[in-house]
């Protein structure tokens, strides 16, 4: 179906999700939902560079935190509305993505991945030493208890939930549009065989830069509302390596070659994690992610989508 139809369908689903959550009336649903939606954006963003182009980014946390700290920074100057901060956050992260890509994308994929790790630590160190945004002590961001617009008043967390829902829709629609466009074909050639892609006339460096910029921008977009969500932003939580492992595991579990993969992976893994946190402990969370990542990468390299296609393929005459 065309992009416009798809956008309408996804938006409609989004509205239904909101309505259902609203009807439930429990704030916890918004908190949990926000986390899952945030992960959908992060894993979709990661997949644009990782799944489509084949370049593994370990620094998801860096771009996420950049978005968060961008919000803290701008908000201190002038308390602007959150949507504006989100745009600013994605621009900042996008620019950093471009810069880092320019420095490292001429090298092999493995070097790029290591460089992303390095970037995360360098940025974290810079932030820790920067008092204006709170440094290692952290930064408080106070938000009103309710969000008011045109006479409507909802709990702030519901506002954040809706915003993240919109961001998730944007991310999914963008990923799908790219996948089916000439750009998506170009990305796939980079993943399959970069040398052959160049020989066919694909400007690989330019495409890779586009991918890193977009990917970074979306991650920053996801991070921008985070200070409002958490209230007290610390470098350790913003730069947590957990974001990296989650944003890698979810697409790998769901399937990296399509926009659906990260969505499925996030829902599957996210639910497993929520369940584990509630029933066992939160430390077991990471163990589950790590084990599932290793298991899927070995057994089902194309993720759940790949397994599904294999099953479907066997049924054909």
């Amino acid at each position, binding site marked *: 179906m065309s992009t416009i139809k798809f956008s309408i369908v996804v938006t409609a689903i989004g509205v239904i999700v909101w309505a259902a959550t609203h009807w439930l009336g429990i704030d916890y649903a918004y908190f949990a939902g926000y986390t899952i939606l945030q992960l959908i954006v992060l894993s979709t963003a990661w997949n644009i560079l*990782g799944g489509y182009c*084949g370049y*593994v980014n*370990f620094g998801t946390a860096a771009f996420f935190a950049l978005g968060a700290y961008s919000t803290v920074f701008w908000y201190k100057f002038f308390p602007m509305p959150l949507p504006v901060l989100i745009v600013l956050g994605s621009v900042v992260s996008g620019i950093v993505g471009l810069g880092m890509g320019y*420095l*490292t994308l001429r*090298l092999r*994929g*493995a*070097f790029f*991945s*290591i*460089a992303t*790790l*390095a*970037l995360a*630590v*360098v940025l*974290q*160190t*810079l932030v*820790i*030493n920067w008092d204006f945004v709170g440094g*290692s002590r952290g930064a408080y961001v106070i938000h009103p208890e309710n969000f008011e617009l045109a006479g409507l008043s909802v709990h702030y967390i519901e506002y954040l939930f809706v915003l993240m829902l919109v961001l998730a829709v944007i991310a999914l629609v963008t990923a799908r549009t790219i996948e089916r466009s000439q750009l998506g074909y170009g990305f796939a050639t980079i*993943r399959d065989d970069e040398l052959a892609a160049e020989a066919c006339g694909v400007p690989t460096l330019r495409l890779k830069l586009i991918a890193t910029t977009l990917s970074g921008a979306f991650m920053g977009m996801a991070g921008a509302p985070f200070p409002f969500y958490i209230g007290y932003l610390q470098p350790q939580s913003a730069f947590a*390596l957990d974001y*990296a*492992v989650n944003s*890698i*595991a979810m697409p*790998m579990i769901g399937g*990296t070659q399509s926009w659906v993969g990260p969505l499925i992976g996030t829902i599957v893994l996210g639910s497993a994690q929520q369940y584990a946190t509630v029933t066992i402990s939160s*430390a*077991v969370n*990471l*163990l589950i*992610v*790590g*084990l599932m*990542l*290793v298991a899927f*990468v*070995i057994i089902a*390299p194309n993720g759940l989508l790949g397994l599904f296609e294999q099953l479907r393929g066997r049924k054909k005459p």
Partner: protein
Amino acid sequence: MDFDFNLLMNAIVSGLLLGGFYAAVTAGIAISFGMLDIVNIAHPAFVILGSYIAYYFSSTFGIDPILVSFLALPAFYALGAAIYQVYYLSFERRGQEALRGLAFFFGLLFVTEVMLLLTFGADYRYVEARYIGPSLHLGFIELPYRLLIPCVVALAIYGALDLFVSRTFLGRAIMAVSQDQLALQLMAADPIRIKRIAFGISIATASIAGALLIVIQPVEPSVGRDYIGRVFAICVLGGLGSLPGALIAAFLLGIVESLTSTFSGPSWAPAISFGFLLLTLAFRPAGLMGR
């Protein structure tokens, strides 16, 4: 600015000693990444595993932690060989090592770290030995034994590895496999077996490096993360596949980190190694002594 020469010299010396230790941690990566082209980012987690094993046997049975690590070598070697076998069957053979291999090791990093966390808890663990505490004094230079001994052991490891690689058939085969797998096959040596042995050795070094680490500082499961960037920075800076290069790069990094820590404060130190790495990758990916 009051320039304290004593302070400077001591900072350089402890940087050198620390660098020696960094070299020990990097030895494994110099083999797995430098020679075998396997991006094992889980290596620091295995080092931490080594630390905990040294801690456990040292505190339970009173054996010297470094001695424990040598006793544990066969186990670590076996672990390395097993991991390589899985890696080879799942990824290398299918030619998918780029994306999936990296994800595999990343997952291993987390699994190892969390298992240690669940087993030992998040508290810092440390070992006790006679040489932790006292220092050797050469004039105004202070050489803490807890830094000196790991540095010496690290140099011994490099010496042993260098001899192994240049004098033994197996060692030369490992160098050969890093350069031309086909030629090695024609020599009737099995490249897969050679690589498995090499990777086993690389993980075995983690056992010793782990013991050295816990001699130098208290350890908790996530300490390994600080080292991921460091070891790759050293490996790239020193030139992939060059053991002497890695050693020199490690010393360099240790000194720079120590100077930064002493004169600008320890909160900037992590940025140094990782910043180094970024700059090296951006401008001189072949390293100081690269192939």
